[in-house]
């Protein structure tokens, strides 16, 4: 076999594998959307679920998912930024830094069900936070924080060395250099990475079964006092998220239209994650233009 034939076979194989992946992905996406989209309506997105009657919605679950994501980001963004800046700019290479990096990577690849059980034993029971949004947010932090640290560290490492040196050479402190010169350049990457990581948090179910719980109390959406138990904003109430709801309704749903609701909810979940992805790209590019003042 001569080199040309070998090259052709290799090219054909690679194209074949690539198209197979695209096909599988498109099929999967198409199937979920095809089954679910017809069920999505404004009423479906806003009304409360029904236990035994048909016609229930996913309103509280959708709200819970978004609110839980927000709580998780409130916890992980400051911690992740701080740790990422430390790892990139302050930590001297050595055994300590290497072991921190190892821990961070191990943490991010932890099986989520194990994190859920850990959350049940420690956060829910030992610390007594109960099944609550707060417990769920802490469990999700376990996955999200390592990603945030890595995103921040790598985006700061990606800032051209000369930019940093130019600032230091003007007699600016290291902190000022980081905040005024490096972070503006790194921010688009950090934001994009954060939104992409948020997609994973949004779809997480296993870690939340035992931490945020599988039920929502009756929520009063006109009550915005975060301390009231019926307020949607109360972080210490149990909260069933969209992904958990799909799992529950599929395994033990009693409503006659349970299958349609699961399909509709799955479509909503997938569409939301897709929206995250697209908005991440768009927003990243927008910030890049803003911060670098390029047209």
């Amino acid at each position, binding site marked *: 076999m001569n080199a040309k034939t070998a090259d052709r076979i290799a090219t054909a194989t690679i194209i074949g594998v690539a198209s197979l992946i695209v096909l599988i992905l498109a099929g999967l996406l198409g199937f979920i959307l095809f089954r679910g989209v017809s069920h999505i309506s404004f009423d479906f997105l806003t009304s409360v679920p029904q236990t035994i009657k048909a016609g229930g919605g996913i309103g509280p679950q959708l709200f819970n998912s978004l609110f839980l994501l927000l709580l998780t980001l409130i916890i992980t963004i400051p911690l992740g930024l701080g740790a990422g800046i430390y790892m990139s700019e302050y930590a*001297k*290479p050595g055994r300590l830094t290497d072991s921190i990096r190892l821990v961070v990577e191990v943490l991010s690849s932890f099986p989520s069900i194990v994190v859920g059980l850990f959350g049940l034993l420690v956060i829910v029971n030992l610390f007594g936070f109960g099944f609550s949004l707060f417990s769920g947010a802490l469990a999700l932090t376990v996955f999200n924080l390592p990603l945030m640290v890595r995103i921040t560290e790598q985006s700061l490492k990606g800032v*051209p060395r*000369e*930019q*940093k*040196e*130019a*600032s*230091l*050479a*003007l*007699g*600016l*402190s290291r902190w*000022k250099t980081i905040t*005024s*010169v490096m972070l*503006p*350049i790194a921010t688009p990457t950090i934001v994009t990475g954060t939104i992409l990581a948020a997609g994973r948090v949004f779809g997480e179910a296993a870690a939340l079964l035992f931490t945020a719980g599988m039920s929502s109390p009756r929520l009063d959406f006109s009550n915005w006092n975060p301390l009231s138990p019926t307020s949607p904003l109360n972080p210490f109430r149990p909260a069933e998220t969209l992904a958990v709801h799909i799992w529950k309704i599929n395994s033990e749903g009693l409503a006659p239209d349970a299958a349609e609701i699961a399909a509709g909810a799955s479509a909503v979940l997938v569409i939301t994650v897709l929206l995250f992805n697209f908005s991440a790209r768009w927003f990243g590019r927008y910030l890049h233009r803003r*911060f*670098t*003042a*390029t*047209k």
Partner: protein
Amino acid sequence: MHQEGLSAKNLRVFYGEKEAIKGVSLDFAPREVTALIGPSGCGKSTFLRSLNRMNDTIDGVRTTGEIWMDGENINDPGVDVVLLRQKIGMVWQRPNPFHKSIYENIAFGPRYHGVRNKKELDAIVEDCLRKAALWDETKDRLHQSALALSGGQQQRLCIARSIAVKPKVILMDEPASALDPVSTAKVEELISELKQEYSIVIVTHNMHQAARVSDKTAFFYMGKVVEYDVTDKIFTNPSEKATDDYISGRFG
């Protein structure tokens, strides 16, 4: 040790175990341009970067010896590097303006060092851009991105930025090697202008440039200074054979 200007005494720089600068002593007089020449890897850039302790930011680099400026050994661990770097400006091989507007590139340093008044800042920006012969080209678009400027303009902006914090010395690491001939000529002209106020240390690979712009020239080879003298002498009648071989193009 009372002397104006900057002087290095027995400076040694190590990358891990490897000694890159092997005991260099050089004096840089105020209002003079000193060129550092030598083959690639001879340590001239490393030496330049140790003068404002920029090598501190690289892990595994150790510097011994003394660098005197204003009666102070700035290589002392107790010295405030941040303050020191304000007095010693730097310009890099590739133009590296901040990803900010032209105005901000200049105003950024002075504002950090305490100039808050808008009028004063405006004056500094104009003054620095004029000194860098960039004012006429940029006065109508001060608030546009510095990245939209041409390479040569960016490099002059970087020089303007470095003088905005009123340094005494400006270190230049091959400031024109990434530029076209016209921009190079402008930068060289600028260097001759600036030496009326600052002492300038310039690393260059371009022998003609060294001959054109500098008052004194130091020839580096293998981490040591082989010869340091008035530029004319180095280029017409060097004392060392190695210098002669290098400037006449027999190696390097």
